[in-house]
C-alpha cells in the first residue's frame, strides 16, 4: 500500500473539491451566482468549475439574488439540483422572499410531490475586517424557517463532507460557510476526500470532563483555544461542534452535557433570539437533573455588526468564554 502524503488544504479548497466532485458525480448539479464563473467567486470557492464544466453548469448570473434563487426554484422544479452562491451573508437578504415563501415550504405545499433539492451557499460571520453588510451571522433567520436544513462546517474535512451531503439532500439546505475559516488549513488528502457526512450529527471535537462548550462554525477554533487555556485553571472542557443547526443532534449534545454536568453555548450571532436560546432550552429540558449550573451563553452583542476596527470587542473570544466558564457555579463542588 502506498502512503499518500497529506497536504495542507484550505477550507475553500475543500469546498471547491466538493463542488467539483458533486458536479462530476451528478450532471444535474448546477452552480450559479454572482462572479462564480470566470472569477471563481470572490472567495475562489468555485475556482475552475466554469472552465471544467462549461458556463451552463457554472453560471455567472445577473446581479440579483431574488432572481438567482427564484430561477433556481424553477430549475429544481424541472429536475436540476442547483447550488446557489450568495456573495455575502447580508446580500442573501433580497432572496428571502424566495427562500421563505417558496424554497422552504414547497415540499409541504405539494404534499411531498415537489421537494426542492437546492443548496444555498452563504459565506457568513465576521472577523475578516469587512465593512458593513459583510459580516452578519444570519443563522437565526434560517433556523427560524421550517423546511430549511441549516448546516455549517468548522473544519476542512467537514467542509467537504457536509457540502457533498447538502448537495445530495433532496431538501433545501442553507450551507453557511464561516468566512474567517476559508483560509484555515488542515492536512487533508484531496485524492481521497473525506467521507460524505450525514447532515444532523454533531461531533465531540475535544473530550473533557468539567463542562461542555457547545458551538459551531467560526467559533469552534475559539472554543478549542479556550479549552486549552482553561487547563491552567484546572478545567477540562469538552467541545461539541454542532455542524448542523437544523436538524439538531440532541443525542450527542445531551450525552456530553450529562457527562460533564455543565454547558456553555458559544456563537457569534447575537444572543437575544439567537441559536443559543434554543440550544440552552433543549439542553435544560432534557438534562435538567444532570446540570450543576444553568446553561450559559456567550454570544455576539445584540447590536448591528460593528465596523472592522471595533469587531474584536464584539466577537466572543477566549477571555469571554473563560469568564463564562468561571460562572458555572463551581463553588458548589467544594
Amino acid at each position, binding site marked *: 500500500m502506498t502512503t499518500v502524503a497529506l497536504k495542507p488544504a484550505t477550507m475553500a479548497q475543500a469546498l471547491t473539491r466538493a463542488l467539483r466532485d458533486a458536479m462530476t458525480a451528478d450532471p444535474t448539479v448546477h452552480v450559479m451566482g*454572482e*462572479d462564480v*464563473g*470566470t*472569477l*471563481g467567486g*470572490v472567495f475562489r470557492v468555485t475556482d475552475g468549475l466554469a472552465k471544467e464544466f462549461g458556463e451552463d453548469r457554472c453560471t*455567472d*448570473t*445577473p*446581479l*440579483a*439574488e*431574488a*432572481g438567482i434563487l427564484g430561477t433556481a426554484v424553477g430549475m429544481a422544479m424541472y429536475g436540476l439540483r442547483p447550488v446557489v452562491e450568495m456573495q455575502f451573508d*447580508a*446580500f442573501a*437578504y*433580497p432572496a428571502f422572499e424566495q427562500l421563505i415563501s417558496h424554497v422552504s415550504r414547497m415540499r409541504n405545499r405539494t404534499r411531498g410531490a415537489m421537494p426542492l433539492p437546492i443548496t444555498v451557499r452563504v459565506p457568513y460571520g465576521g472577523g475578516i*475586517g*469587512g*465593512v*458593513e*453588510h*459583510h459580516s452578519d451571522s444570519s443563522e437565526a433567520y434560517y433556523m427560524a424557517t421550517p423546511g430549511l436544513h441549516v448546516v455549517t462546517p468548522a473544519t476542512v474535512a467537514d467542509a467537504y463532507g457536509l457540502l457533498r451531503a447538502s448537495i445530495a439532500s433532496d431538501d433545501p439546505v442553507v450551507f453557511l460557510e464561516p468566512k474567517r475559516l476559508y483560509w484555515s488549513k488542515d492536512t487533508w488528502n484531496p485524492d481521497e476526500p473525506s467521507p460524505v457526512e450525514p447532515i444532523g450529527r454533531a461531533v465531540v471535537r475535544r473530550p473533557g470532563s468539567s463542562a461542555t462548550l457547545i458551538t459551531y462554525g467560526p467559533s469552534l477554533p475559539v472554543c478549542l483555544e479556550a479549552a486549552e487555556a482553561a487547563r491552567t485553571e484546572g478545567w477540562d472542557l469538552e467541545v461539541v461542534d454542532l455542524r448542523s443547526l437544523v436538524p439538531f443532534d440532541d443525542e450527542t449534545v445531551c450525552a456530553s452535557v450529562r457527562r460533564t454536568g455543565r454547558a456553555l453555548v458559544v456563537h457569534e450571532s447575537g444572543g*437575544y433570539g439567537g441559536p443559543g436560546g434554543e440550544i440552552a432550552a433543549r439542553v435544560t429540558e432534557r438534562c435538567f437533573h444532570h446540570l450543576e449550573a444553568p446553561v450559559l451563553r456567550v454570544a455576539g*452583542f*445584540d*447590536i*448591528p455588526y*460593528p*465596523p*472592522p*476596527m*471595533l469587531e474584536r*470587542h*464584539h466577537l466572543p473570544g477566549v*477571555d*469571554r468564554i473563560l*469568564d463564562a466558564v468561571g460562572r458555572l457555579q463551581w463553588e458548589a463542588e467544594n
Partner: protein
Amino acid sequence: MTVMEQRGAYRPTPPPAWQPRTDPAPLLPDAVPYRVLGTEAAAQADPGLLRRLYAQLVSGRRYNAQATALTKQGRLAVYPSTTGQEACEVAAALVLQEQDWLFPSYRDTLAAVARGLDPVQALTLLRGDWHTGYDPREHRIAPLSTPLATQLPHAVGLAHAARLKGDDVVALAMVGDGGTSEGDFHEALNFAAVWQAPVVFLVQNNGFAISVPLAKQTAAPSLAHKAVGYGMPGRLVDGNDAVAVHEVLSEAVRHAREGGGPTLVEAITYRIEAHTNADDATRYRGDSEVEAWRAHDPIALLEHELTERGLIDEAGIQAARDAAEAMAAELRAHMNQDPVLDPMDLFADVYAEPTPQLREQRDQLAAELAAEREGTHS
C-alpha cells in the same frame, strides 16, 4: 345564456380602442452616447464651468490615488476606486443645489467629496472606524449604500416626500450597471415614474460588476432603454466627457425640479482599476481593453479642450495639480492618525434608549475592558 344559445344575436366586436399610454418616442435614448468635448458644441461650453470641472477632475483623480495608497498602508480597510469615472462622480455633485439630495452607492465617495463632504468623513466606512461618517441630513448625502440598488427607492421616497411638502428638492441617485439587475432598481424606477417624483437616476456603466461584464448582465439595447418601460426618459451620455455628463444631468435635474418627473441617465464609462484593491482584474479582463479606455481619459479630454481654446495654460494646469496635492497631503495627514475609538460606542444608537439587555451587555464590556487595563486577563 351561453354563446351557443345566443347564436344569431351575438356579433363579435373588436376590443375597445387601445393606444400606448405614453408615446415612447420621446423617451428613447439617443442612438449614441451624447458628447460635447471633441465636437463643435464644445465651443459653446461656458469657460468657467470647464475650469471648475477641470479642477475637480484633477482633484478627484488625486483623491482616488491617495485613497488607493492608503489601502496599501493599511489605513483603509478597502477602497473601490473611481479612477476613470471622475467625470460622472464630479458632475453628479455639481449639478445639485444646496437643498438637493445625493444618494451614492458604495463606490461614490468621490461624488460626496465633490459635493463638499470632508474626505475623512466620506472614507469613514472604508477606514472602518464607523459606518456612515457624517450626518446625512446636514450634508444631504444619504449613507453610502453597500447593499446594491437599495438606496434607489429611498431616493424616490425622499423626493416624493419633499414634493408633498411643497419643497424644492431633487434627489440624484447613483447606481452601477450591475445594480440595475436588482429588483430594487426596477421598483424604484416604477415608483418614481408613477409618482412623477423629482428624481434623477445616474447609472454609471463602467463595464463590470466585479468580474461580470455587461453582456452577462443585460440583453437590453442599452441600460438607458430601460427607462422607456417605466414611462420616463432615458438618456445616454459619454461618461468620460465631463461637460456632456454635466449638461445631461443638469437638464434632468431641471426637468425634475420643474415637475417633469424622473429621468434615467446611463453614463458610459470604464472602471480603470480592479473592483477594489482586494480584487485581481487580470482574472477576467485583458490589458488592451483597459488601454483603450485610458486613451479616452476624462481629464485628458477636458484638458485638451481647455488648452485648445486657450482657457488654461501651464500655470493653470499646475495650479490645479497643486491644489489636488494639497488636498491629498491633508487627507494623508488625517488618515495617518489612528482614529479615536471607544468600544462603548458599540451600544450607542442601536435604539434611542438602550434596552435593559443592551445596558447589561454594555456593563459587561466595560468590566472586561477594566479588567484588561488592570492586566487581570493575559
